[in-house]
């Protein structure tokens, strides 16, 4: 096996128990060199515990963690080739920027002049040249962010762990930092392991995303795959918006299912996992997968066709949508409005036709809902 084939990080059957609760349950995954890997999950799903085990602050109850192919279970955090950007950044307020960044090199016993050079170089790289003498409380949120990353990068870690570092920033800055982080990672090529509960952060930045729930990985895939081909109902519900029905399967032919939703709406859907006739299922359709039209003829080609009336319009610029009420279903269907202009004059109460394809209608067995 040559060097490039060894993953930077690999976990095998990692379990962490806190008393009777299982925080992390049989997690297996690997992160390839140079990848931007995200772990996405709701709070309390065990993602922070998993990251703390990789950093070395917690030991797994069982299982193994390998960095570049060698186990680090017995290696303390200060000797692991892994550095962490903390949730609240944890910059040392008693030191200036240069001292903060140089901290790790000082601990390695490197000479002062070399440290100064390295600090200047890394400040340049994160786009903050000459900021060395500044105090921490003189920095803006975005600058602190970059200093915290620089403080880790100067040590040239195999793996950089980021624990929801954008959580404390306001929305606008967060959007900007998302792009900056992705660009920075692409430039320096360090492997990033990023933890977040914000699906947009995970989807925008990552090469690979693991969706975590109740201590387990539900699915590990590229952002596109997660979004368009979720494997479990949890992933379908957690990543992106979705219209959600529950129902009972009536006929099965291959992957194609026919069923009635709880309100009596007839639906043609694609089965994910083994589904048989009579099973209770959950059906997910993305708002942007639903075609909306004022003419019945335009929806003729779709597998699912339905007629409804506009209940309310939710204007949100490019992400505007409409809630359509349909006969026989007490819940409205959310539909993304195309931004080409033909729906700019849509009114509440107007009659519309909706259509969507069976392959964009994902159906999961209902017993794993919310599991």
């Amino acid at each position, binding site marked *: 096996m040559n060097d490039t084939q060894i993953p930077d990080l690999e976990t095998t059957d990692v379990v962490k128990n806190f008393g009777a609760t299982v925080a992390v349950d049989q997690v297996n995954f690997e992160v390839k060199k140079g990848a931007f890997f995200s772990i996405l999950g709701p709070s309390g799903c065990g993602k922070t515990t998993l990251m703390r085990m990789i*950093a070395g*602050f917690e030991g797994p109850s069982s299982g193994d963690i390998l960095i570049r192919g060698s186990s680090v279970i017995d290696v303390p*955090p*200060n000797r692991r080739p892994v550095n962490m950007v903390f949730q609240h950044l944890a910059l040392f307020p*008693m030191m200036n920027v240069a001292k903060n960044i140089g901290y*790790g090199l000082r*601990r390695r016993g490197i000479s002062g002049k070399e440290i100064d050079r390295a600090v200047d170089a890394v400040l340049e790289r994160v786009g903050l040249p000459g900021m060395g003498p500044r105090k921490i409380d003189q920095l803006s949120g975005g600058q602190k962010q970059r200093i915290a990353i620089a403080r880790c990068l100067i*040590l040239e870690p195999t793996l950089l762990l980021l624990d929801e570092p954008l959580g404390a920033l306001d929305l606008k800055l967060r959007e900007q930092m998302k792009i900056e982080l992705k660009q920075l990672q692409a430039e320096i090529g360090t492997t990033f392991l990023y933890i977040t509960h914000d699906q947009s952060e995970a989807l925008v930045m990552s090469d690979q995303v693991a969706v975590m729930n109740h201590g387990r990985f539900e699915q590990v895939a590229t952002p596109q795959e997660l979004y368009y081909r979720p494997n479990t109902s949890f992933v379908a519900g957690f990543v992106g918006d979705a219209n959600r029905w529950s129902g009972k399967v009536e006929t099965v032919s291959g992957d194609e299912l026919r069923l009635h939703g709880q309100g009596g709406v007839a639906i043609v859907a694609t089965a994910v996992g083994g589904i048989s006739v009579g099973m209770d299922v959950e059906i997910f359709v993305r708002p942007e997968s639903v075609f909306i039209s004022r003419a019945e003829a335009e929806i003729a080609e779709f597998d699912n066709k339905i007629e409804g009336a506009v209940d309310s319009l939710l204007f949100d610029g490019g992400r505007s949508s409409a809630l359509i009420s349909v006969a026989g279903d007490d819940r409205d269907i959310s539909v993304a409005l195309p931004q080409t202009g033909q729906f700019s004059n849509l009114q509440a109460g107007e009659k519309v036709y909706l259509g969507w394809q069976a392959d964009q209608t994902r159906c999961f067995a209902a017993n794993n809902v919310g599991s």
Partner: protein
Amino acid sequence: MTEIGSSDLGATPAKLPTSVRRQPGVARLWFYLLLLPPVLWLGLLIILPHIQLFILSLKEKVAPRVYTYGLDNYIGFFNEPLYWMTLLRTATISILATALTLVIAFPVAYYIAKMLRGRTKNLIFVLALLPFWVSELVRTLGWIMLLRETGIISNTLLSLGLIPERVELLGNDAAIITGLVYTSMLFMVVPLINSLDSLDDSLIEAAYDLGGKGVAILREIIIPHAMPGIVAGSIVVFMLTLGNIVTPAFLGGKNSIWFTDQIYQKFIVRFNWEQGSAFGFLLLITSSLVVWLGLKLTRQSLAKTIT
């Protein structure tokens, strides 16, 4: 639209009830009223008596009921080695006791503030405070029970066969320091816990993550953060130790006189209030000087300690 808005704005203050528009004079009256108690306290109980003492310290008795003013009482202090050496010894032992208190209190405070959580933390904290519900006098007597020749420690060592005969552990500097450290513990532990409590755990983890080890993290992260608590605790402990009278009197012997004892002797035994006042001022000057030096050496300021 704008007209309505502006006229509205203009009208608002006039509509407010008169009580809301507080007169500047009333606000000032409140300020002085609130200032009164501390001013009275400082003035009547601290500044006035000190002025009196200061005047007293400059008086010289030339004949019965005949006084002149001069620095004789102060000069007398420097001319008699017993006096200034006692003060020097008192200050040195106080500094030593303060340092020792800090060294012992720091791990205790760190353990309570950082290692414990929830109910255990409160319990241990209260346990640390518990001895201070008993008066200092009684606690010092407790040490006598332990340290005297027929005391618990001496007897235990003897019965274990570790010493050939009973030992007297009282009446020396070590006994005084032990008592002083014990008496001062609380005043060091509380400010230390306060300052360590506010230290974010992730700072310690970050330092560890970036390659730091125990001692380096203590020196570069924990101690700088706890500095205000260390300074506050040290000042309080030093002042209390320097001005302590019970502990040195009970635990020290004939050869370990505390400077407060000298002052007591002057006032009560010799009835020489003039020199006693001078000694009091010399003690005040010494403690202020040591605190000032300590602040300079650690590059701290009193203002930083309070905030």
